[in-house]
């Protein structure tokens, strides 16, 4: 084992952590503001990946049309997210949690079958632009450029969300609305719009994650459920509603998994859930969450 190998493993772990975070961030954001567990987050992620394929196909399927897909697909699902919020979730806010959960769960069934119907059985391949598909040597280790880009995007997403929520007026409004919706409305802020915006933003982030992962895998049925459970676990470990928590938990799970693979065989399948169970038993509201009443 050489230093370059360790470096390689760290980068690998961070990459998977950041991919996880990209999905988890939207999930935890929506929970933090709307108090809804969005089961359909994974389905939206898959839908965006399929849309990105179609966008590229529309523009001739050249690798560089990926940029178009990266722009359009997340926006498309963000629009869908806004529609879902307005027509399906809005009537649910006064109802029990269970009913809200059922709506998002039912959406999973609907969206998954719709993608199957619209895109058919074949896995779809999304190509990377040449500039991203190369490799680069640093300190004796070779990394895929895309891996480094993903890590960068993960950190940028965290930074962006942090800046947005902490340094902009809209961000402050969102945090205020999450803490005390009634008082926020009494200050002249239309929370309905904020909720739609946040759910739409959550969908956009799921979409972005979907488009980002697409070139690393093939777009196919089943990609939603495998990511959802892991992202969900990360959100719970970090504390539901805490974006920083999700970020640290993603890194913890990503790196933990990498080094777990190195030292303990056969742990990967249960690793995330073991961490989650331990955290929940010790601190049921997660590492950085607040207990909800």
């Amino acid at each position, binding site marked *: 084992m050489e230093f370059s190998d360790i470096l390689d493993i760290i980068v690998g772990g961070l990459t998977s952590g950041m991919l996880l975070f990209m999905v988890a961030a939207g999930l935890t954001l929506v929970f933090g503001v709307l108090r809804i567990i969005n089961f359909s987050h994974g389905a939206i992620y898959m839908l965006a990946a399929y849309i990105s394929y179609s966008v590229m196909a529309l523009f001739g399927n050249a690798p560089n049309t990926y940029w178009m897909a990266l722009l359009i697909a997340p926006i498309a699902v963000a629009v869908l997210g806004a529609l879902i919020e307005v027509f399906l979730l809005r009537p649910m806010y006064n109802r029990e949690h269970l*009913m809200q959960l059922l709506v998002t769960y*039912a959406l999973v069934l609907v969206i998954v079958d719709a993608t199957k*119907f619209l895109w058919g059985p074949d896995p779809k391949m999304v190509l990377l632009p040449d500039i991203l598909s190369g490799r680069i040597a640093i300190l004796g280790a070779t990394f895929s450029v895309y891996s480094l880009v993903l890590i960068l995007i993960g950190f940028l997403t965290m930074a962006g969300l942090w800046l947005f929520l902490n340094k902009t007026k809209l961000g402050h409004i969102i945090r205020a609305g999450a803490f005390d919706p009634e008082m926020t409305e009494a200050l002249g802020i239309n929370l309905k719009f904020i909720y739609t915006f946040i759910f739409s933003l959550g969908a956009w982030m799921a979409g972005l994650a979907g488009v980002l992962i697409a070139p690393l895998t093939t777009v196919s049925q089943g990609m939603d459920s495998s990511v959802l459970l892991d992202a969900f676990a990360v959100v719970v470990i970090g504390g539901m509603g805490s974006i920083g928590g999700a970020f640290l938990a993603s890194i913890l799970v990503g790196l933990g998994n990498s080094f777990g693979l190195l030292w303990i065989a056969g742990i990967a399948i249960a690793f995330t859930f*073991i961490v*989650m*169970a331990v955290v929940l*038993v010790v601190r049921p509201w997660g590492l950085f969450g607040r207990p909800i009443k």
Partner: protein
Amino acid sequence: MKSNRIGTFLPLLFLVFLFLLGQILPNFYLRIIIEMAILGLFAQSLNLIMGYGGMISFGHAAFYGFGAYAVAILLRDTGMSLVPAILTGTVLTGVFGFIVGAICLRAAKLYFAILTMAISQLLFVLVYQWYAFTGGDNGIHGLTVSPWMTDPQHYYYFVLAVVGLCFFAIRVILNSPFGYTLRALRDNQERTVFLGAYVWWQKLIAFVFAAMFAGIAGGLYVGYDHMAYPLLVNWSKSAEPILMVILGGINTFWGALVGAVLFVIMEMVIGKITTYWLFFLGATILILVMFFPKGIWGYVEEKLAPFLARER
């Protein structure tokens, strides 16, 4: 209390009807009814804690699967016959439910739901990997039960008897002080504390009951399909009883059964026309949740209310 008599009379009439069905229906339909009854018991066991106790569990399949695997392994390894195996399996599931409940009840509401899901997912991983004991991903197939039980008509009566007894037992529990304390907890936990209730124990015991009834349902399933497999423990299986309870009507006694019946029918009927049946299931749930939050049976019950005694 005249109307009350109609309330108890109807289920009896229903039982007679089911008995006659066993005489006239071909095996194929009997097997469908068996499946409905088993899933109905599974859903009802969840309804006990979710509908009446207000505890949402995302991991209820853990107990259904635990019961199923316990029975399957007992049948495979010990040469026990089905009935003692189910009895043993139920006790084991109860013990398992006690441990899981004691851990999960540290948390409340959504966190409780998530914790149950995490634990059931851990069990899934265990079952999936422990090849020597649980058969790993393939599961346990081709179990033999006594020839008498293998006959669908006989098994139909057996399941009917067991599920009927369980429903009766659940009914008794729900109509006992314990059952009403459970409702009181759901309505207003704080108040019951000031009435001197041991909330934690109350919930834990309810949880164990629910686990045991789910375990019985799992055991009956093994006697029916002669197999156990990891998906019985998966979170997607946990979603099924939730959907059934909502489909039929939460907070109603018969809703869980009605939901299970509808679920099986939908799966068969729509699945026959299109392989996209989940789309229609999703759409149905959306319509129900948006427009009929009380579920199908809840809605019917509301319409029948003038004719029936209050059945709660």
